[in-house]
């Protein structure tokens, strides 16, 4: 007969810290704990659940003491995973935690896969899918905001929000379904116009949340910004200036930077990966050609581009090519070398890149850099303030997109006057999208809504 096995892993992040936690979860957790953990004062007997016990970890084969620690047993189902869980709070440091983990593995536990504790918590119904995913996000979050978002989601922020939307959708469905199943009853049906307005309002709210995905994604994964420009306009100098250290070789020979160089900076809490790329220009040098193709690919993948121009020179033919390459891409025009007399034609810039703001700087002196950072941050985060709910997960995004699409189709159907059971199908699809995020609930609830709303029954 199959049974879940017992898994073990170091639960705290790697690196040196004061305390590290080794966690075991599964049916054998308590048995293993009894074999390797010896309570201070030689007290025997079962460990009380949800209580900290002081003692030491010893290898039962030779009695060698591995570490002194605190142990806490959490018997199921009141534990993170819903199974028996034991945690050893030992001294930090990789050597100690590895030895503790090895002790547990030697007694029959299995090294946990990444995310496996959370998976078990989900499978045991301790957390819903959205919460489970939030935990995984949390362990991978790169910024403080990202971490806070994940925490909020874990505590059900998104779930609650989706539940509210679902209730509203059920209300609309009740209207539509009542008109089908109770068409013989004399009930006050919502006029089509009001129904349409309700569907539209719901759709817009979902659209608003969908827009927050970008905000959330940028905070979790960091933004990618590509620095582009023809050779020798000062791209690498700009990168160095933004980083505040000499990292990239800066030489006056055009075409020095052939690879793409990635560096990370923070702009007001937002992590940004800066890609310094080969200059775009016409060249026959095959190595440099490859670098330029690479640049174009990075331009496509980036969230925004910093288009660097030499302010002290009139625009060159390569600049024209560059402007074409960044058309439609979110970006800023960075006029470098503003310490020299300006000779670039601003009216030409306004004509070829009307969507991009101009920031004038000197990478050498540092002038204008703060303004550039602020402008870049504003550009990346379309919403200046943090949205109330932030989508961080691509599965949630896809599900909400499906809901929004179905609502669009429902609205179109209502406008065209198609039969209500067909509108109902679209609304059901929209409902399924929402339920994918928090788990499905059965069909009965539409009827519940109908019965509370309408006087049914001849």
């Amino acid at each position: 007969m199959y049974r879940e096995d017992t898994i073990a892993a170091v639960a705290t992040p790697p690196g040196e810290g004061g305390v590290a936690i080794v966690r075991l979860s599964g049916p054998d957790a308590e048995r293993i704990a009894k074999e390797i953990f010896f309570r201070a004062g030689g007290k025997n007997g079962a460990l009380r659940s949800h209580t900290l016990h002081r003692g030491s970890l010893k290898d039962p084969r030779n009695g060698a003491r591995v570490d002194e620690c605190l142990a806490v047993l959490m018997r199921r189902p009141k534990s993170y995973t819903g199974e028996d869980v034991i945690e050893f709070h030992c001294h930090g440091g990789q050597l100690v935690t590895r030895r503790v983990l090895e002790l547990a593995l030697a007694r029959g536990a299995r090294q946990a896969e990444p995310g496996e504790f959370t998976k078990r918590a989900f499978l045991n119904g301790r957390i819903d899918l959205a919460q489970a995913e939030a935990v995984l996000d949390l362990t991978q979050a790169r910024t403080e905001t990202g971490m806070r978002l994940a925490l909020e989601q874990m505590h059900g922020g998104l779930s609650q929000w989706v539940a509210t939307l679902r209730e509203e959708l059920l209300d609309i469905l009740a209207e539509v379904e009542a008109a089908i199943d109770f068409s013989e009853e004399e009930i006050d049906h919502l006029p089509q116009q009001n129904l349409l307005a309700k569907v539209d309002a719901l759709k817009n709210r979902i659209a608003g949340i969908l827009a927050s995905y970008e905000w959330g994604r940028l905070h979790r994964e960091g933004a990618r910004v590509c620095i582009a420009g023809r050779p020798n306009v000062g791209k690498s100098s700009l990168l160095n200036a933004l980083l505040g250290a000499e990292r990239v070789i800066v030489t006056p020979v055009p075409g020095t930077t052939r690879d793409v160089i990635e560096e990370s900076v923070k702009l007001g809490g937002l992590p940004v990966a800066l890609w310094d790329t080969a200059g775009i220009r016409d060249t026959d040098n095959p190595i440099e050609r490859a670098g330029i193709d690479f640049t174009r690919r990075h331009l496509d993948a980036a969230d925004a581009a910093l288009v660097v121009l030499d302010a002290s020179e009139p625009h060159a033919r390569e600049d024209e090519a560059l402007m074409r390459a960044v058309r439609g891409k979110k970006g800023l025009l960075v006029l470098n070398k503003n310490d020299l007399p300006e000779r670039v034609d601003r009216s030409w810039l306004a004509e070829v890149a009307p969507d991009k703001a101009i920031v004038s700087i000197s990478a050498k002196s540092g002038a204008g850099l703060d303004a550039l950072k602020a402008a870049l941050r504003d550009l990346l985060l379309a919403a200046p303030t943090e949205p109330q709910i932030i989508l961080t997960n691509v599965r949630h995004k896809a599900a909400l997109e499906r809901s929004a699409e179905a609502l669009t189709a429902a609205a179109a159907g209502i406008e065209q006057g198609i039969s209500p059971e067909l509108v109902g199908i679209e609304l059901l699809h929209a409902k399924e999208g929402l339920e994918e995020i928090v788990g499905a609930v059965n069909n009965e609830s539409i009827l519940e809504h109908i019965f509370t709303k309408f006087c049914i029954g001849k």
Partner: protein
Amino acid sequence: MTEKIYDIIVVGAGHAGIEAALASARMGCSTLMLTLNLDHIGQMSCNPAIGGIGKGHLVKEIDALGGEMAKAIDETGIQFRMLNTKKGPAVRASRAQADKALYRQRMKRVLENTENLTLRQASVERLIVDGSVVSALETQIGEVFRGRKVILTTGTFLRGLIHVGDKNYSAGRAGDFAAQGLSASLIELGFKIGRLKTGTCPRLDARTIDFERLQVQHGDDPPAPFSFATEKIAQKQVPCHITYTNHKTHEAIRASLHRSPIYSGIIHSRGPRYCPSIEDKIVRFADKERHQIFLEPEGLDTVEIYPNGLSTSLPLDAQIAMVHSIEGLERAEIMRPGYAIEYDYAEPTQLYPSLETKAIKNLYHAGQINGTTGYEEAAAQGLMAGLNAALSLRGEEPLIFKRDEAYIGVLIDDLVTKGTDGEPYRMFTSRAEYRLLLREDNADLRLTEIGHKIGAVGEKAYARLERKRDGVAALLRLLEQTAVSPDEASGKIEALCTAPIRSGTTLAQLLKRPEIGFAELRQFAPSLKDTPLDIALQAEVEIKYAGYIDRQLEAVKRAKNFESMRLPEDLDYAAVTGLSREAREKLARIRPRSLGQASRIAGITPAAISLLSVYLHKRKQASAS
């Protein structure tokens, strides 16, 4: 003791009992039908009508499977109306007023003329069980009938208790005895028995109603029959009338609410919310100024009128005051008082989807004993119980419809999976997630072949199905292959207010346009004028709704994995680690057949389903290695 052992004994001769007994006898089983009163076979205890939205669908399915209800109403119906005609074909539904007496007589005649079927008047008091297998029944007067299978269709008769105001008395319905002993016998066998409530209207004397002042409602002309076998409705048709309650009515009701058995706390059991009493309606929807009342004739040869919408259990003086406050009913005389009735039912989660009980082998429950309401819901279950009992005697697999195959499948799956939750269960189209596939018009195409295969459907019906199927296929071919040129279409197309065509366009493409139905299409292809209506409708639906139907079919396919993942009957849920105690208890009690069914049990979370699927997967791996 009688020595004869019947194959199947049906207890009850209401709408469930009739279909059960007929199905059983027609499948060749020696069948005994026991009823408390041979004069009341097929009685409509409540409203004199068959069908309705969702219910009409059931009647058509019963017909497609060889059942009797559709044919009976076609012969005895006195007003036919197609409902939801302004909506799509999936939610259009048939409804008909019945002549109650004719309906009863016709059903009795059919039963009496069916081979293998014996009728007896008897009150069954006790089930006789060997171990956990039912073997015989004992009646009130000590007579014992032996049978291999027993189907209980007890309706509202199990310890039925009628309430009018603060008065109550034991009865199966007004005018009939209740069955007193059988519930105790079921409880003794370990069944969980609950109590439900329903109610009915007072009946009025047509001679005292002022119809002149009331709105008339006529039926469809020509009336469309229920049965795929009926060509024409021959019965005389009559109208219904419509009137409304008013604030005086509501005042009269409010003034006597404290004497209502429900509001004074005598009745605790719950009635159906979709079929509330008039006092419920004015309490729950206090700001509604009036409620509609349909005055439905109970038959051609009687003056009794059923005022649909006036279900009540108020004391008689309050009923009279209420009736007299209504326009057209000022002088109306009550011939039978309205009443509420409480009765025992057995929670249907105690059944397999075959309708056989889990606790007692060879025992089947069908109809209101399973907590449903409605003649149609009862008949559908009766039919399935009869067929499945007969199949089981032959050693064959039970017939279990999936939710995408039939409303009957939805009905039974809901009952055995979710139970009734303390409220009588009625069919609605919104209960069917694959509603576009389950239409009245294609019930024969969906089910008749299956019915024929098991022997429930005769050769004539099967030949009719084949004709229809071939006809539809041929018509679809024709519509796809026949093109209309812009020249041929000119003039006609403009007259229909639809966009002109620029090049040759097939009839099928034209039919896709919202402005063009099959009737309009005939202008472009005169050869279509002889196409039978049922075939034309099929082709029209298949072409017009192709996109939506395809999407539902895809959804069926997506769910199929889930639905076909069988959970072993002997699965030990205690061995599935991680399941909550509640989930474990529910799964062990309901014992779902598939993962899909498990997911529909109330309170079973997606997490529990993931656990089960992981468990099944591991188990399969373990047995493979």
